[in-house]
């Protein structure tokens, strides 16, 4: 059995076992969830180290394929290359961290952990899959629990509306994706139809899809995947949804699940329909800029910490879209780095804000201030996370953003300059204002408990370590990413009318 299968099957299997355990065995339930996700994380780290140790080359590692419904062209096929290995590692770490920080959950623990594990295991499986059927179905499996998690364990007065909104939006996105994927499937000649991504890519590379078909299928995938990633102007579900979600769910959703759309664009939409991708590049760039500037500006106005983080996370996604819109090797590499970096970052910030919410019973920044004195650990980590959020070097996001700027310059100087403004100035303004009003200042508090034990600090440390390790040694990611996106970049740049 491939390592990848184990990585995503462990949480899913644990979810199954948990479902069978009586709900009052609370200690056993939590232990089992921790154990499964920890094992999955360790395996992911092992896989990543093995992977990073090998010379970078196109193609997949840890491949595993079993025939399943061959009449429909469906098979179980998993594999890792530079595009998804980093995401799988990030997802496994985030999943473990999310389970770790859920120790304060004390209602319906069993159901909570089952749903959390389904969500995490599902999305890890979607990332590992090289077959569109599993790719789609496993993502759907991960989508559904969010609704229940927000509705039952969520916080805030709008949580029901937020739960409906997030679910309807994402179902709409998933529906568009489904239509697009089926359309792609039907573009193959009847005898050769397959859901296998590798075969599809090879087929459409040899026999490019008809321009007419591309031009209506690509937008389906673009906006379908786009809605899943909160592409402007379909972004308003994200801040409110995350604001109401329980901490663990927000971490997995914002950190891992949201990367699925970007991953889908790079894995499926671009290689299969390069011509259309080139045509839509300008639109993607403008919408990505919309994310960066518009949502960044909205983040500047928020006084609720979770809404600020949510808007900022939506703004960050814009950089990944810009990287994709650059239709260049450098930009694609940057986009993937941002996906990984932002996963760690979003999970970390939501974990921290969740802790604050539990301690203060509010996330209104106007009521905070001077907290650093009482919460030195949480405060220090959050200040680091916020610095990472405004693109400070030393954290992985910086390299991603820098690559996007270098890659995007040839396509449009104006868009790139505006994006730099968004990264350095707008993000700087709202992050520093937030640090100022939450952590600094004269207000004094009592009855606040900081995290002191290693056990409780570890999940935050793990996520931070992800940001710092890739921020200092970007080649751990980029060498393999570059190798994997090179074929995509070649396909899109072979299209006439590509970048100058």
């Amino acid at each position, binding site marked *: 059995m491939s390592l990848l299968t184990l990585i995503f099957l462990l949480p899913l299997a644990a979810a199954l076992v948990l479902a069978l355990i009586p709900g009052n065995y609370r200690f056993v339930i939590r232990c089992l969830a921790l154990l499964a996700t920890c094992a999955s994380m360790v395996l992911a780290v092992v896989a990543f180290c093995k992977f990073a140790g090998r010379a970078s080359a196109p193609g997949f590692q840890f491949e595993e394929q079993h025939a399943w419904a061959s009449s429909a062209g469906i098979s179980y096929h998993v594999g890792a290359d530079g595009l998804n290995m980093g995401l799988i590692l990030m997802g496994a770490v985030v999943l473990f961290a999310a389970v770790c920080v859920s120790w304060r959950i004390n209602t319906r623990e069993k159901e909570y952990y089952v749903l959390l594990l389904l969500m995490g295991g599902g999305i890890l499986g979607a990332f590992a899959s090289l077959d569109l059927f599993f790719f789609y179905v496993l993502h759907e499996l991960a989508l559904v629990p969010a609704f229940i998690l927000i509705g039952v364990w969520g916080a805030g007065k709008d949580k029901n509306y937020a739960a409906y*909104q997030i679910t*309807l939006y994402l179902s709409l996105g998933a529906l568009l994706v489904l239509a697009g994927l089926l359309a792609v499937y039907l573009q193959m000649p009847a005898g050769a139809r397959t859901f296998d991504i590798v075969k599809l890519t090879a087929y459409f590379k040899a026999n490019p899809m008809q321009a007419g078909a591309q031009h209506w299928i690509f937008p389906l995938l673009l906006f379908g995947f786009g809605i899943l990633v909160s592409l402007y*102007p379909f972004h*308003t579900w994200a801040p*409110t949804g995350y604001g109401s979600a329980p901490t663990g769910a927000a971490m997995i959703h914002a950190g891992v699940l949201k990367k699925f759309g970007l991953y889908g664009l790079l894995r499926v939409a671009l290689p299969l329909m390069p011509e259309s991708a080139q045509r839509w590049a300008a639109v993607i760039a403008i919408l990505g800029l919309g994310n960066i*500037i*518009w*949502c960044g*500006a*909205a983040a*500047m*106005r928020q006084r609720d910490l979770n809404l600020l983080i949510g808007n900022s996370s939506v703004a960050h996604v814009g950089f990944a879209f810009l990287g994709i819109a650059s239709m*260049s*090797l*450098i930009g694609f*590499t*940057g986009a993937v780095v941002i996906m990984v970096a932002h996963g760690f970052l979003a999970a970390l910030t939501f974990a921290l804000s969740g802790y604050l919410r539990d301690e203060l019973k509010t996330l209104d920044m106007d009521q905070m201030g*001077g907290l*650093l*004195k009482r919460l030195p650990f949480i405060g220090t980590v959050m200040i680091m996370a916020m*610095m990472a959020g405004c693109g*400070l*070097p*030393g954290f992985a996001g*910086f*390299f991603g953003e*820098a*690559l996007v*700027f*270098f*890659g995007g*310059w*040839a396509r449009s*100087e104006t868009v*790139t*300059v505006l994006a*730099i*403004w968004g990264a*350095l*100035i707008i993000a*700087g*303004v709202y992050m*520093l*204002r937030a*640090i*100022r009003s939450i*952590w*600094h*200042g*004269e207000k004094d508090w009592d009855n606040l408990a900081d995290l002191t034990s290693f056990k409780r600090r570890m999940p935050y440390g793990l996520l931070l370590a992800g940001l710092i390790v890739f921020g200092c040694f*970007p*080649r751990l990611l*980029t*060498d393999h*990413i*570059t190798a994997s996106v*090179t074929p995509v*970049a070649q396909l899109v740049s072979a299209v006439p009318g590509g970048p100058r």
Partner: protein
Amino acid sequence: MNETAPWLILFLPLLASVVITLFLQRKPGLAAMASVGAALISFVLTLVLLAQFLNGRALDVSATWLQAGALHIDFGLHFDALSFIMLLIVAGVGSLIHIYSVGYMRGDPCYGRFFACMSLFIFSMLGIVLSNNFFQMFVFWELVGLSSYLLIGFWHQKSSAADAAKKAFLCNRLGDFGFFAGIVLIWAAAGTLNFKEINPALFGTAATAAGLLIFCGTVGKSAQFPLHVWLPDAMEGPTPVSALIHAATMVAAGVYMLCRVFFIFTVPSLQVIAWIGGITALLSALIAVQQDDIKRILAYSTISQLGYMVMAVGFAAPPAAMFHLATHAFFKALLFLGAGSVIHAMSQEQDIWKMGALRHKMPVTYWTFLAATLAIGGMPPLSGFYSKDAILAAAWEHDKALFAIGVFVAFLTTFYMFRLFFVVFLGQAKSDAVSHAHESPPVMTVPLLILAALSIIGGFIGINHFIAPQFSRAAAEVPIFAPFEPFKAAPGAAALGLAAFVLGLFGAFLLYAGKRSDPIRENAAGLSRLMRDKFYFDEFYAKLVALFHDTPAAILNLGDQAIKLLVRLVHGAVEWTGRVLRLIQTGNLQTYTLLMAAGAALALYFILTH
């Protein structure tokens, strides 16, 4: 040794910072030792490498940091005369200030955090100095910004300190915005980021734009007009921080960077650089004349002196800029540490009009402060005279208007520095706190003495001779000890510079010797208020930010609400349709039959008519 020593210089301070952060927060003694030790070892290693460098050994090391397609980013250390000068200043003056801090910060509850941040700063600053490419320089450029932010906001419970930190970071970010855009532009034009490989001839029409964008970085970091507003507020940080970061090293990084990438500047961009430097020097010197806070006077003086250095680069005279940078590092660090010693003695009082007569209370501080004041004023044969003269001589050659500004600023410098000196150290005591004042402990005064020695002899230790060959092949054959050389080389500049010093000293003596309040304030209230309120830049910028950042943000946020409303409307429409349709589902059989019959009739009608 040869391979690892360069890396050790850079990474030892980082190691110290990490170790202190993780393990030594509660062990102040060890934390200070680690931090001071790292700085000192870096300094010693620099000396060792300097010896090897002078023997003609190549010391550069480099590795690939990132590679993606055509983008190749190195992480490398580059050693030449320019970087050695800066290394010696950063590690040397840095070590002295570290030692001083051991005394100054004693008793602070966050002693460990202070030294962790200081070491982080030294690491980042050394990184700027040693970078061999634009990208790496930008990375460390941002990291010094971070350490500066952390240290300005060190006492983060004080609102003013927290605000100042935020302001400093954001002003720097504005400069970095241009800097980074310039870096991307240069990469797009030249295809490389390594200083050695960039060929400015490839820039074409973008050359001036590239130069000016890169210069934005300097405007932010070196607090040049119009981004000068953050540096005075940065004085909220502990005084050793002001001395190290906001006087001697970090703010000078902008000047260093200009010298490092001097080859990319075109004539028009140099013109802009020179004028920005000149305007900054004049503006901040004028403001300094009417400040009352001892650290703020020094802060404006720093901005003004940085303006001199930037102006020198604009005159295509990087050696003069680096010379002044070095001497300024000595005497300005000394002035700040002296001011710190005074503040320490006066139990945190910073208003000069509450001091006075400290001469007898604090003799070491008094004498060293006098040396620094004379040096910055430009009295021969102290270091400041020679470095300032080099700049004035370059101005004399290039631009008479800027030369006039330069001489006038020299006059103002002497004037406001002696105003400070007379009011603080001479005259009568102006508050009770003076009677409790006492000299600082040796751990603080020894660094003062060393810096005083350097400030005095700085003109004769060959800084100029060491750096000049890197920029011009025809280095003048002047001996290292040549006290009268300026009067031979450019007599006009030297004589006017000296006259400005004498006039300034005389003016300050007339107006301030023995005074208890400021005569300018009493006799020219309007002018004084304008200068005291810093020409209202802060107020103007606050309006600007509100107009161009906060208002659009509010509008876009409203847009977000509009999108949400639209979604609610769609949602509402679906729900409303459902409610209407529900009315039909009455459960009444007759209604259903009626509807069915109506439907059938309608269908029949359509079939029959078409």
